[in-house]
């Protein structure tokens, strides 16, 4: 369905401008010394250009600490998910053992249940474990995920059996086959699992809101939200938004196609 070119591009450009306006406002606002208003154009044009907002958020908040917390609770699950989902994907795609399908589809079914069902029992459990205000409740449950296993499994099932058989004949064991043959072949799908895990964990708001009650332990999402409800200064708030947006944006720029794949596969919003 080829539509004639230039009206299409005009329309696309207009639409993308609408999508970009909020981000442009964020970026411009973060560099302006502007108290309240963004409504009147005159105030926008008169406002002075400044980097004070950025200095302020780092000196008057636990901002650096929040970013550090976010990095910890994101990086650990990203790498452990890539590893465990790859191994388990291999196990479920290529190995035979008792109850294989019951275990796999049973886990898939349980994960389909809404996450809100888990939050209260986990809160009680983690209080008992003394895990509140530590990184553990945000890391330990996230070290692997059945959806990631599902991707890897689907991908590996398409790889020909001959590859492994040749390696077995040469005397390789499972670990060697997984590490030397399967893993290199599965780089794209493992990158998808990792990228997806990054965005989900970095942007998570609900879980840390429950398990982190001390400001020092907030990740950037909860920290930024607490800053937004406190400041009432447009420039400062937007500076905070920009800084917390940058890592997601960079990951998005570099791994866009993996992330798109992840969205298409998981059915997540």
């Amino acid at each position, binding site marked *: 369905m080829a539509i004639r070119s230039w009206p299409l591009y005009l329309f696309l450009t207009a639409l993308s401008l609408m999508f970009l306006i*909020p981000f442009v406002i964020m970026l411009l606002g973060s560099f302006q010394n502007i108290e309240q*208003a963004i409504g009147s154009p005159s105030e926008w044009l008169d406002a002075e250009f400044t980097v004070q907002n950025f200095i302020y958020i780092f000196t008057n908040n636990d901002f650096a600490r929040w970013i550090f917390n976010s990095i910890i609770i994101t990086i650990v699950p990203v790498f452990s998910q890539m590893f465990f989902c790859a191994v*388990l994907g291999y196990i479920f795609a290529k*190995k035979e053992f008792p109850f294989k399908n019951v275990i796999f589809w049973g886990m898939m079914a349980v994960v389909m249940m809404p996450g809100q069902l888990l939050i209260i029992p986990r809160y009680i459990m983690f209080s008992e474990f003394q895990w509140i205000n530590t990184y553990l409740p945000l890391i330990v449950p996230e070290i692997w995920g059945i959806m990631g296993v599902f991707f890897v499994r689907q991908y590996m099932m398409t790889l020909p059996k001959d590859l492994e058989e040749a390696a077995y004949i040469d005397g390789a064991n499972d670990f060697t086959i997984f590490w030397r043959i399967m893993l290199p072949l599965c780089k794209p799908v493992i990158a998808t699992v990792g990228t997806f895990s990054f965005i989900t964990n*970095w942007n998570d708001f609900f879980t840390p809101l429950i398990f982190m009650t001390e400001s020092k332990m907030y990740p950037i999402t909860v920290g930024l939200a607490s800053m937004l409800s406190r400041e009432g200064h447009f420039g400062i708030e937007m500076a905070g938004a920009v800084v917390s947006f940058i890592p997601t944006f960079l990951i998005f720029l570099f791994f866009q196609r993996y992330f798109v794949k992840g969205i298409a596969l998981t059915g997540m919003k």
Partner: protein
Amino acid sequence: MKTEFNKNAIVYVFLIPILIHFFIFQLFPIGFSLVLTFMDWPVIGTPTFVGLENWKQFFQDKLAWKAIWVTIKFSVMYILPTMALGLVLALLIDSGRKASGIFKGIFFLPVVTSFVVISGIWAWLFKGTKEGFINGMFALIGLEPQLFLASSKQALWVLAALSIFKVCGSTMIYYFAGLQSIPGEYYEAARIDGANKWKTFWKITFPLLLPIHFYVGIITTIGSFQIFDSAYLLTGGGPNYATTTIVYYLYQEGFNSLRLGYASVLAYILFFIVFGLSLLQRKYLSKDVSYK
């Protein structure tokens, strides 16, 4: 000859710890939350067994029903626009092949941005005074300033607009994948028969996307029943409970009023709704449309 263990060593080394992990962090909590619905479990103090008390209370709790109603209203405002916009964006980038990567990236940007960042911007856009950006624009073209988030009539619309903006990029991806799986011969045949673009869309593209419509419809609905972040960040459930959704109410009851037993009932109500929707999905997805 290798022993049975050696042949499957990798299975036992990795699967057993993962199964234990699964039991502790998934299976046990889900069973535990069912037990919790029969308990009075204040965060501080001793839990007591109360039988069906929490469930009875749910049926009499006007606020809980209001929260369900608010969530349904939100879904109605949100689902169709998200699907329609996603489809339009997919059609556009599908036709504009040359620059489609850039546009796809732009439409997708809100999907990867956190709700907190978008809500931060949205709060200023929809400020209910003349300082708000949208009210500023309204003033330029001579429209009355609106209350937006401070109005119990408008606040839910603003949240719906935010969610549409945030999510339609992912709907676009599903539709884009769907469009690319429609074989070119159909369009070829339509062209030879002299069908115009409008007709081609309604007679070929739209019906052939049927499985995608169902899939996107169901996951968007499931997502909309779990809406929380924007209600928490932008309106705090207000004004006058106009944006208190099921999950927001669950959060309030569980972690502000510290009634974990009752909040578990709400979690199960949410589960029943989402489960029902998933069954629908399965029923309709099994009727897969075949292209050949």
